[in-house]
């Protein structure tokens, strides 16, 4: 992508006067272009100086303590270095439980939907819906282990189905928050070891993506899971894709649109 159309918009980007589409356009470019990112940062710093040039008012005395308490509450709940490891283990355990509940049949059921005769496909579809409902319940339980969702948090989920000619299935949650780390989990089943290593990505509607993780080995039943927490926002990503070692998409799903999930 060329820099010229982005640089033309950096001033308005710094002043926060771009519309949503243009803002997203610039943000995508800044993800990877260090030169434009440097210029954007300088313009943003200058714009911030404008904000300092305003008549001053004192906040109410009680606000300071509220800020302290709110940050300390979050800091206490957030994973530190040793807590990150603990959270990963919690995720791994939860994912294992989820797979146990859904069972080996998950991937097979998803595969069967596209591979069999009409009657068998209907039966497979029914089974897939049952498993999806069970998966959804367990995903909700998993979400609760991560502290649930606040009023401005977004929880998006999808069931990934196999692309024609492939097998398997997956469930995914993407958690987007203005105040916490965003994270994503994908739990897969019924994959073929012939496609290893698999790459799991989140993709936006313009084709730009972020890596979620790689699967280098499968459990005996063809299952695997990936989990990743991010500093960047995952808000703009709408698809979850699993690609095999040749780069072919084997599983795909479109994330549900927000609204925000209620606190669990």
């Amino acid at each position: 992508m060329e820099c010229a159309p982005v640089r033309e918009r950096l001033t308005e980007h710094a002043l926060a006067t771009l519309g949503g589409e243009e803002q997203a356009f610039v943000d995508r470019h800044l993800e990877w272009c260090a030169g434009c990112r440097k210029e954007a940062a300088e313009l943003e710093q200058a714009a911030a100086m404008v904000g300092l040039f305003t008549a001053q008012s004192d906040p109410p005395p009680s606000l300071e303590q509220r800020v302290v308490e709110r940050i300390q509450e979050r800091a206490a709940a957030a994973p530190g270095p040793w807590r990150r490891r603990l959270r990963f283990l919690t995720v791994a355990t939860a994912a294992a439980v989820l797979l146990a509940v859904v069972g080996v049949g998950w991937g097979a059921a998803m595969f069967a939907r596209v591979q069999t005769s009409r009657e068998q496909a209907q039966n497979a579809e029914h089974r897939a819906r049952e498993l999806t409902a069970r998966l959804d319940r367990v995903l909700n339980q998993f979400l609760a282990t991560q502290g649930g969702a606040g009023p401005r948090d977004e929880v998006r989920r999808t069931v990934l189905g196999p692309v024609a000619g492939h097998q398997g299935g997956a469930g995914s949650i993407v958690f987007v928050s203005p105040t916490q780390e965003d994270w994503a989990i994908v739990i897969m089943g019924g994959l073929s070891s012939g496609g290893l290593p698999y790459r799991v990505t989140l993709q936006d509607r313009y084709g730009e993506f972020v890596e979620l993780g790689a699967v280098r080995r499968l459990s005996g039943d063809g299952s695997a899971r990936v989990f990743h927490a991010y500093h960047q926002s995952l808000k703009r990503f709408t698809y979850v894709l699993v690609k095999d070692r040749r780069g072919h998409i084997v599983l795909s799903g479109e994330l549900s649109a927000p609204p925000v999930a209620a606190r669990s």
Partner: protein
Amino acid sequence: MIHPQEGPLSANEEQALLQKLMTGDEEAIRTIYGRFARPIYSLGLRLLGSAEGAEELTQDVFLTAWRKAARFDASRGRLSTWLMAIAHNLAVDRLRRENGAGRPTLVFMEEIPERLSDDDVDPVLERDAARRAMASLSGAERSLLVRAYFQGLTAREIAEADHIPLGTVKTRLRTALIKIRRSTVGKEQ
């Protein structure tokens, strides 16, 4: 209450403060609050038009700072401008959510003071730099920036309102920001 702070923080001090903020260190939180809550709250008051909105914004800014503390790089800019950028973006996001997609309609705008009053003792010395930076602009440049930053007008809207070419408005806005940047970089070195 706002704790009076003396003297600007060095880049190392600012970086260290953010490191401590990440851990929820109370002293770090109160130090940053003491220095920057007032301009953040004031910006919120002017952009959102209510004390309630300004208080919520201030809390959100500090929470966001805590969340993103690992990404702050003191070698690339001052903590004050980093926090003010967070505040402005969060305020605009909030206005867009409340008013629907598109340009935010700012509820309230007050006349921007031309200079600090003698009584306006401010612990954030960058505000002094901000005043000088704005003074370095022409009246037309300052007006353009104020309309864009505080009123949320796009370059196109300004161009149509003033019957001047869009490219001219964009160039003037960019020139104004670059002038501000140059006047503040000189102070940092």
